[in-house]
């Protein structure tokens, strides 16, 4: 009896491990991010957010990858895009529907893509866009810590990227590899998230302490957390300013996938 029970446990364990192994093998190009809880921004009444385990592309989607997608899905080509799904600047820097032109690197992140296009791209790969919470969670990490936000140097580095012009011309992988094995979350381009507009920033940032108490109690936060909040605030401000059909030169994306769905 005891033996059979042990057997069952063993069998289950073996099945589970093989599943895991299979999953890893199948998606070894994606980085495994172990879930957890975190507070998006520090402040007087911030709330904890829980994130489940998920897989994330180690690099943003490149021009070459998106070109392949356009070849396979011609309704997403530059000249064929429906106005509803992207504005006039969709793939603006590309030479033509199926050609990047000389000034656009194949290995640079694809930008000037709308949220609709990014979402569709991921769906065609059997993936999805990461949620805002997932993206922010993965982006807390530096090279060796899952949450580096308390490090002043880390925040300073992010802030100085926000001030460096034209980083969208650089190739993917040109910044650091973080704790989860993910590159370029900071320092290359902004990235779409599935629910980018879930947090509304009115644009009148001094009012936002009223509109979203959970996120923008900036006045309540003091001292060391300020730098961290500033870096995050700029991302939230950016997300608050965009709409799903916008195609922006500094905005790319990468895909994610549930860890359980494998």
């Amino acid at each position: 009896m005891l033996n059979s029970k042990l057997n069952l446990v063993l069998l289950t364990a073996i099945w589970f491990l093989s599943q895991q192994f299979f999953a890893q093998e199948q998606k070894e190009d994606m980085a495994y991010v172990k879930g957890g809880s975190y507070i998006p921004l520090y402040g007087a009444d911030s709330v904890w957010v829980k994130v489940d385990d998920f897989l994330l592309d180690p690099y943003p989607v490149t021009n070459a990858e998106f070109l392949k997608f356009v070849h396979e899905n011609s309704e997403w080509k530059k000249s064929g895009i429906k106005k509803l799904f992207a504005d006039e600047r969709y793939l603006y820097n590309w030479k033509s529907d199926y050609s990047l032109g000389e000034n656009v690197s194949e290995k640079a992140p694809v930008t000037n893509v709308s949220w609709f296009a990014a979402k569709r791209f991921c769906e065609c790969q059997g993936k999805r866009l990461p949620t805002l919470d997932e993206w922010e969670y993965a982006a807390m990490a530096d090279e060796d810590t899952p949450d580096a936000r308390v490090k002043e140097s880390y925040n300073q580095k992010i802030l100085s990227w926000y001030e460096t012009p034209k980083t969208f011309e650089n190739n993917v992988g040109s910044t650091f590899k973080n704790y989860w094995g993910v590159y370029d979350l900071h320092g290359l381009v902004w990235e779409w998230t599935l629910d980018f507009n879930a947090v509304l920033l009115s644009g009148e940032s001094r009012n936002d302490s009223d509109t979203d108490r959970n996120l923008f109690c900036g006045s309540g936060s003091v001292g060391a957390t300020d730098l961290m909040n500033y870096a995050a605030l700029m991302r939230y401000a950016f997300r608050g300013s965009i709409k799903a059909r916008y195609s922006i030169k500094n905005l790319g994306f990468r895909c994610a996938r549930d860890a359980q769905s494998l």
Partner: protein
Amino acid sequence: MKSINQLSKNSIFKFYLALVLILVVLLTLFSCKPEEAKAEDIRVESKIQAQLTSPPFVPAPVGARKAANLVVDMEIIEMEGEMTGGVKYVYWTFGGTVPGSFIRTRVGDEVEFHLKNHPDNKLPHNIDLHAVTGPGGGAESSFVAPGQEKVFSFKTLNPGLYVYHCATAPVGMHIANGMYGLILVEPKGGLPPVDKEYYVMQGDFYTEGDYGKPGLQAFSMQKAIDEHADYVVFNGAVGAISGDNALTAEVGETVRLFVGNGGPNLVSSFHLIGEIFNKVYVEGGSMVNENVQTTLIPAGGAAIVEFKVEVPGTFILVDHSIFRAFNKGALGMLKVGGDENEKVYSGTQLEKTYLPEGSVIQAMPVAEKGKEPQNVPDKTLAEQLVHGKQLYAQTCFACHQSAGQGIAGAFPPLAKSDYLNADVGRSINAVLYGLTGEITVNGDKYNSVMTSQNLTDEEIADVMTYVYNNWGNNKTKVTPAMVKEQRR
């Protein structure tokens, strides 16, 4: 009886009639005023494109122009610029300059504001104009992503000089990077005409490296929070309105300066050395103060100052929190040309030595010892000249002036200087240990004090080589070894 009754009734009627008449007169008298003052009801008749100008210039006065529908096209550009010689900084700008383009309107204008965020930009921005009556001063309606354009309209109700700035989170950072400017709302009929008008705006900057540290300097959020400014400047950079870029006027002209303070942190004690402001529109509003020496301009505030220039010369604009002027860059120039007027200012009439307790030389604070770099290979002349020029701008320029011409009677010239060229050792000594007492330079006597300069041997060699190889001097190449020899 009856007639008396009739009489009294008659007089009562007359009394009432008079009362009504008085009331009507009073009403018409008073009703005239508010009708004219109500800017909201001023009709606009035409649509015109606003002329925008880069500092230090301002658009043409509104004069007799009627209120109009004024279209303002403002482009936001994030760009690299030069803070001072060899120091680069990424500015965020309204219209490609710091401060942003000057907007000139009149009361009653309906401004149609187009805010365009250049596609190459990284961040969303918006604009809060203090001249706007409405939530956020337009900030909420103008929040615009890169590669997008937002349009909103407002009516100018109150005359005055107003600041505009970006109000996107984090607001302090957007302002600290240069996102501010001025919008003028002139009263009906315009401000009284003057001969010259200029646009000057102070701002404080916070960089990773301290003042003068070369290379691309990142914004330091921590220093900004601590309010420890590295640079306090007029018009976005050290020297933006000095030397060749100085403001100019002629003797006898009336000059009007539109002065703003973008902050983000510091309040300006705005002063023009050697002038008295005949008029100051206090805080940019309608109250006029007269005969003002220094006017306080709050962060996010402005003032209009007016003065007549009576004598020629170079007049220095400063923030009279004076270390900002000489150590952080808050220094500008107004060069006035024309004939001397000795009735107003005589120049030096007498000079003689006055040394009651012997001479004392003041020294600049010396930083930690041993910072002298070891075994540095000698620089080429070209390298020395580049570095020397930067050092000159930071250390010597305030007294000896941009082209080494000095200031007559106060600071001896370094240009074509017989004193300098006669003895290089003596000159090195003056930089090392200061100089006091009477000297004769090019035939003129000077009796002033030069402070001892806190510079390394290499720095002294570079800056002196720069001086010796410019402005008609004898092209001596000063080496660090020569400086070392003079150290006691």
